[in-house]
C-alpha cells in the first residue's frame, strides 16, 4: 500500500491507521465510488477533495459504517473491518461529523452530544454528569454554549460546532469531518483547526472534506483527490500547489475562480433607511440595479438577519424601506416575492428544499408559489423552471425525477439556487450561496449570476468566505453587532481589512 504513497514522508515509521482501498458503491444506476481509496496515518490532517458528487461523503459514510460498500476493503491498524456498523465504528474510535446536520433540534446540546450513550448512574441517566461533561467538551472548543439549551435555539454555525463536540465526546482515534467548516465563521474555523492540530499532535488521524482551498493549503498535511468516484491521487501539501490539486479535481485547468461582474449600475433598487429589527440596529444601505453587494461579518453579526428582514421572514420594526423608489413594508415572504425579491436561505435542508421531492418539483416551487391559488399546474411548469434555473449550473444527477435527498450536498445547493433563478427576481438575496459547492461549480454559479446582473438584477450575498466576496462583489458591507460598520469597494478590499472591521477591532482601537 505504501507504494501508492511515495511521498508519505511525514510518518514513515508509523503504519497507516485506517485504510480504504478498492471501494465501490452504487446507488441504482449511479456509480458513486469506483475503486476509491484513502489511507490515513496517525498524526496527520488529511484533506479529501473532489468536485460535488465525486463521492467524498459516500466514502466517509462507508468508513463510518453508516452504509456498506459494494466492494473493497477497510482496515484499521492493519486488521480488516468487515460488516462495520455505526455503533462498531464508534466503539473502535472512528467518529464522523456528517455534511448534513444530524442533531435532534428538540433535545438539549448536552443530550445531543451524548445521544445514545448518556452517562448513567444508579436508577437512570445522570443529567448532572451529562451537562458537566458536555460543558467540558464545549470549553475545549472554546464555545460559549450552555449545554442545557435546546439545539433548535442555536444558529447553523453553532449547531455545527455542537456536531463537532459530539464527535469529540468519544475521544476518537480517527476523526472524519465532512465540510464541517462550511457553516462556520472565521473565528470558529480558527478554533476548530487549532483543536485539530492539538489532536494531530496526540496522534489522531484526521480526515476532512472541504471546498475551501485556502483551508486545505493552510492546514492539511496531505490531500487525496477523487473524481467521478475514482481515486486520482494523494499529494503532500508541501510538494504540491493549489493549481495542481484543482486540475486533479476538475480534470482540466481552471483559469480564474471568479467572474467579476462590474456592470454599469442603474437606479437604486433597494434603499433602507434606519431599519431596525431584533439584532439589527439602524441599517442604512442602498443596492443599485446591476450591483452585487456583499455582506461580511461574524456569525451573529446580523448578516442573515438583514437578508431575512428584506425577504419578509422577520418584518422590520422601525425605519423605511424602498424598492424601486416605492416605500414598502414587507410583512411576509409572499409579499417580498410579489415585489420581485428572491431569497436563498442559509439552511438548505431545513429552510430551502423539500428533501423528498424531485429536482423538478423543488426547482418549480417558487414559480408555482407565485401563481394564484387555484391556478392549474402540471409537471411542465416544474420542468421549465428546472431548465431555466439550472442553466449553466451543471447539476449532477442521474435523473431530475430523483429525490433531492439523493444528491450530493453541493448539487442540492445548486437546485436551491436554480429555484430562485427560475423566477428571475429583481433583487436576489443569497445567504451563504456556495456553502458546500466545489470550486468549478462556484465559478458556474457566479458566471450565471453575473449574467443575470447584466440584465439589471441587484444582488446581495452574505458569505463568510471573504476571498469569495472580494472576488465577486462590487461593494462589501461589514456588519458588526447588528450595524454596518464599513462600506468598502471590493477592488480596495483585502481580507485583513474585512476581518478587522468584522471582529470589532475598530472599537478596541478607539477605546
Amino acid at each position: 500500500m505504501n507504494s501508492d504513497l511515495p511521498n508519505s514522508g511525514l510518518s514513515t515509521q508509523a503504519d497507516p491507521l485506517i485504510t480504504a482501498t478498492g471501494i465501490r458503491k452504487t446507488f441504482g444506476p449511479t456509480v458513486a465510488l469506483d475503486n476509491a481509496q484513502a489511507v490515513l496515518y496517525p498524526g496527520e490532517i488529511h484533506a479529501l477533495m473532489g468536485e460535488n458528487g465525486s463521492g467524498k461523503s459516500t466514502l466517509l459514510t462507508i468508513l463510518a459504517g453508516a452504509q456498506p460498500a459494494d466492494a473493497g476493503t477497510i482496515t484499521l491498524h492493519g486488521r480488516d473491518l468487515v460488516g462495520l456498523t455505526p455503533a462498531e465504528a464508534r466503539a473502535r474510535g472512528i467518529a464522523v461529523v456528517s455534511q448534513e446536520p444530524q442533531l435532534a433540534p428538540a433535545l438539549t446540546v448536552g443530550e445531543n452530544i451524548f445521544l445514545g450513550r448518556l452517562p448513567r448512574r444508579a436508577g437512570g441517566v445522570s443529567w448532572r454528569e451529562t451537562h458537566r461533561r458536555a460543558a467540558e467538551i464545549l470549553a475545549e472548543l472554546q464555545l460559549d454554549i450552555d449545554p442545557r439549551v435546546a439545539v433548535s435555539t442555536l444558529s447553523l454555525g453553532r449547531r455545527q460546532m455542537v456536531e463537532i463536540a459530539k464527535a469529540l465526546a468519544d475521544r476518537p482515534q480517527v476523526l472524519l469531518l465532512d465540510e464541517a467548516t462550511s457553516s462556520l465563521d472565521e473565528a470558529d474555523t480558527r478554533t476548530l483547526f487549532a483543536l485539530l492540530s492539538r489532536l494531530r499532535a496526540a496522534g489522531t488521524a484526521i480526515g476532512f472534506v472541504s471546498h475551501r482551498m485556502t483551508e486545505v493549503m493552510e492546514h492539511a498535511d496531505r490531500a487525496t483527490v477523487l473524481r467521478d468516484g475514482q481515486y486520482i491521487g494523494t499529494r503532500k501539501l508541501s510538494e504540491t500547489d493549489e493549481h495542481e490539486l484543482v486540475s486533479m479535481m476538475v480534470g482540466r485547468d481552471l483559469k480564474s475562480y471568479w467572474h467579476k461582474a462590474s456592470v454599469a449600475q442603474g437606479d437604486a433598487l433597494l434603499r433602507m433607511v434606519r431599519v431596525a429589527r431584533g439584532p439589527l440596529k439602524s441599517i442604512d444601505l442602498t443596492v443599485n440595479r446591476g450591483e452585487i453587494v456583499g455582506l461580511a461579518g461574524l456569525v451573529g453579526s446580523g448578516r442573515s438577519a438583514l437578508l431575512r428582514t428584506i425577504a419578509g421572514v422577520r418584518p422590520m420594526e422601525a425605519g423605511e424601506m424602498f424598492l424601486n423608489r416605492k416605500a414598502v413594508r414587507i410583512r411576509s415572504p409572499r409579499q417580498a416575492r410579489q415585489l420581485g425579491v428572491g431569497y436563498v436561505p442559509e439552511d438548505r435542508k431545513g429552510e430551502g428544499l423539500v428533501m423528498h421531492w424531485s429536482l423538478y418539483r423543488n426547482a418549480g416551487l417558487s414559480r408555482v408559489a407565485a401563481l394564484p391559488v387555484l391556478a392549474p399546474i402540471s409537471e411542465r411548469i416544474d420542468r421549465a423552471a428546472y431548465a431555466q434555473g439550472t442553466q449553466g449550473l451543471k447539476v449532477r444527477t442521474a435523473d431530475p425525477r430523483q429525490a433531492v435527498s439523493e444528491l450530493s450536498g453541493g448539487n442540492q445547493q445548486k437546485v436551491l439556487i436554480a429555484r430562485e433563478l427560475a423566477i428571475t427576481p429583481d433583487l436576489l438575496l443569497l445567504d451563504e450561496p456556495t456553502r458546500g459547492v466545489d470550486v468549478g461549480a462556484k465559478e458556474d454559479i457566479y458566471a450565471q449570476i453575473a449574467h443575470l446582473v447584466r440584465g439589471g438584477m441587484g444582488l446581495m450575498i452574505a458569505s463568510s468566505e471573504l476571498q469569495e466576496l472580494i472576488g465577486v462583489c462590487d461593494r462589501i458591507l461589514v456588519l458588526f453587532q447588528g450595524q454596518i460598520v464599513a462600506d468598502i469597494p471590493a477592488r480596495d478590499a483585502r481580507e485583513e481589512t474585512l476581518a478587522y472591521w468584522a471582529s470589532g477591532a475598530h472599537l478596541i482601537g478607539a477605546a
Partner: protein
Amino acid sequence: MMTAAENSSDTDKIPTSFPTLLRRYAGVGAALVALIVFLSLTQENFLKYNNIMNILRTNSVMFVAAVGLTFVIISQGLDLSVGSMTALGGVFLAELLTSGVGAWPAIFLTIAACTILGAVVNGGLIAYGGFNFFVVTLAMMQLLRGAALVISNGVPASTFMWDPVQWVGDGVVLGLPVPVVLAVLIGLLGYAVMRWTRFGRSVYAVGGNETAARLAGINVARVRVAVYGISAACAGVSAIMLTGRLTSSQPVSAALGLELSAAAAVLLGGASFAGGSGNIGGSAIGVLFLGVLANGITLAGVPSYWQGIATGAVLIAAIALDRIRAK
C-alpha cells in the same frame, strides 16, 4: 449518518410516474386484490351485485371523510373532529328541516356551516393561534359531539319526509347509488385539486417542509385554514349522506369513530403522519380495503367485534411492509 435520514424520506416520495406509483401502492393494492380473490372463491355471495353495491354504499361516507382527511394529513396535521362534525351536521340538518327550511337550502346551509366551523375554529386556532392540531381537534371532537347532544337533547330526529335528503343518502341515479356517485365525484375533484392545482401543490409543500414552503412564498396559515375547512366540508357532505341513509339524525351514535377509521384508510393508502405524502387514489384503495375486509368478516359469519382487531392488524402490517420495502 445521512443514509438513515434519507432512507426514511424515501418512503415519503410523492409518486410522480406510473412505475413509482405502482411500487407505492403495490402493497395495499395487491392485498386488496388478494382479499377480493379470496372472498370471491370462499364466499358465494361476495361477488353478487347487491353485495358489491352494499359495500360501496356503506363506505361512501367513510370515503368522503377520508378525502378531507387526506388533505389534512398531507399537510402534516390531523382532524379528530370529523366524526363529531358529521353527527352535528346531521342534527343541524334535522333542525333546519323541522323548522321549515326547504330541503335543498338546508343541505347547503349544513355543509356551509360545517365548513365555516372547521375553517374558523380548527383552522384558525391551528394556523393563527399556534395551537397544536391534535389538541384543537381533540377538543373539537368533544365539543361538537356535545353540541349535537345539547341541540337535539340526544334524541334522533326523523328526516324521512324530506325526499332530497333521502335521495342523497339512499337514492339511485343511472342505476347507481347516489352516495356512491357523489363519493366518486368528490374523490375525483379532490384528486384533481391535489394533483393539478397550485393549491394542491402547496398542501404537499407545507406538509413536506413548512419553513421552505413559507420562504418560497406560500401562505402557510391560509393553506392550513383551507385544509381544515375542506375536511369539515367533507364531514358536512358525509352528514347529509349518513342522515339520508339512516333516515334520521343520530346525535349519540352517528359517525362514532369515523375520524379514526378514515385516518386508518388514508394511512393505508400511503400517506404518512410525517406529512407531504399520500394522495386520494391511495386513500380510495385504503377505504375499499377496510370496507371489503369488514364485508368479508360479516359474510364469513365472524362476529363483527373482530373488525377492529382486523383493521388494527392490517394497518400495522401495511406500515411495517412499507418500512421493509423502503430499506
